[in-house]
């Protein structure tokens, strides 16, 4: 079963614009992680935010977490064509397996 629901399912933007993807989940969590997957390849870990954190930055990435709304957002600033990929949120509660959402397909047009 998949807990996370990313929104939108697909997003197309121009190079240089910002991209925002949202993730909603259902149960309590210890942390939420965002992963990127290029077509036909494995997942790459982007950022992990703990349940007691509200915002985290890594380079052009900004992640927010609102545990009261059970939601998270991933912002990619100044997007590049190389950012074209699928982005997944994944949640973890205790020593349970990571639960992934269905992902957002991002297309950045040069």
């Amino acid at each position, binding site marked *: 079963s998949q807990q996370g629901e990313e929104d939108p399912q697909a997003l197309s933007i121009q190079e240089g614009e910002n991209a925002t993807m949202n993730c909603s989940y259902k149960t309590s969590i210890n942390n939420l992680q965002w992963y990127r997957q290029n077509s036909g390849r494995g997942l*790459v870990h982007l950022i992990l935010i703990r349940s007691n954190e509200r915002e985290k930055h890594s380079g052009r990435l900004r992640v927010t977490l609102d545990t009261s709304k059970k939601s998270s957002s991933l912002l990619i600033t100044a997007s590049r064509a190389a950012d074209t990929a699928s982005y*997944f949120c994944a949640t973890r509660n205790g020593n349970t397996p*990571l639960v992934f959402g*269905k992902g957002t397909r991002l297309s950045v047009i040069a």
Partner: protein
Amino acid sequence: GAGVSQTPSNKVTEKGKYVELRCDPISGHTALYWYRQSLGQGPEFLIYFQGTGAADDSGLPNDRFFAVRPEGSVSTLKIQRTERGDSAVYLCASSPRTSGRSYQETQYFGPGTRLLVL
């Protein structure tokens, strides 16, 4: 190697056949995970190893699926009597260790094996 490797990268088989998928985790990583990803979906957990033992196999869909990790390093996912519905990308991931705070750890994914059952 520097990352998680998986072989084969692609596997085509016929319905009813047996297949083995191999995962070579990052050296020194004691935790190993298998996931299955269907088209247009996120990865779904299958099984987790801590060392040689399967610590959590709750994601295996049925008894046709089995995985081993006899020496605590390389793992093999085995699928018996394959069905067309088994067609998917099978992903392997590893992480450095499992401890009381293992849930804070990042998982490192391999490129996956794309399985097609005809």
